[in-house]
């Protein structure tokens, strides 16, 4: 018999939209889940920059507000 571990989901606000992810996920997990290259983006959590070197160490909590940005064309 296989044991499945189901983790509860938490809800974040990601770039202004609701986003659900497994409880216990880090910011790095989130970036990977979406399919982004962490080297090309910057992450802000609850108005504070999450340094790239600490993405794996910062755990997400229910209700967190995340902004993930990158560079686009502009003047």
């Amino acid at each position, binding site marked *: 018999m296989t044991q499945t571990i189901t983790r509860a989901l938490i809800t974040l606000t990601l770039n*202004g939209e609701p986003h659900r992810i497994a409880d216990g996920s880090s910011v790095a997990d989130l970036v990977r889940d979406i399919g982004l290259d962490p080297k090309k983006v910057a992450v802000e959590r609850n108005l504070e920059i999450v340094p790239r070197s600490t993405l794996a160490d910062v755990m997400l909590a229910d209700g967190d507000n995340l902004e993930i*940005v990158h560079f686009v064309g502009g003047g």
Partner: protein
Amino acid sequence: MSNTDSWTVAGRTFTSRLIVGTGKYKDFEQNAAALVASGAEIITVAVRRVNVSDPKAPMLTDFIDPKKYTYLPNTAGCFTAEDAIRTLRLAREAGGWDLVKLEVLGEAKTLYPDMRETLRATETLAKEGFLPMVYCVDDPIAAKQLEEAGAVAVMPLGAPIGSGLGIQNRVTIRLIVEGANVPVLVDAGVGTASDAAVGMELGCDGILMNTAIAEAKDPVRMARAMRLAVEGGREAYLAGRMGRRMYADPSSPLAGLI
């Protein structure tokens, strides 16, 4: 003629005096081709939310190599000092760059800078170790205040952003150039090559433009025109133009007339 003309901002030396934006292009390929034709070494870029539903969409950095070109993150679209500072903190984290373009806008209709907010943001950014090149009004006193606040370059508008109206006040641009101890670049308002040349003839260190190239019918060709205009205007400034006369003065000698 010297082929080694260069300019330095915050200790970084560049040979091209043209800075180009990367907005409004048909696609990334056209943008990259125009960039090559412009000869620019610095490009401005904006910071925006990633499209979470399409993470594999092509990114600017896939087409314009950040190792080859100096990315100058801007704060376009920010209307308060706080928004601008927040944007540039994210930009520094995303790219690791401290040389940035600050613009804090006052209203959507004219996109004129809000100088009170701009000055406040400049002070904070300088304290946080940023090197802000600052978009500003064409006001020699405001330019001095920005310099005192820590601006590494002042970038007065020639005309409203995206208007293509050309440099409206040559007197104030010249006064800013004369009074500045940091590089002065005309930022915004250039519509065609002669506008860029005018800015350079006034003694500016460089010109920053986006729409004039991106909205030309042939952006790659206009990019080349702008490169030549900036170089031509610079050479004319260094050469020192002739004096103005009220009336004609013949070029052929009067002596020996038959």
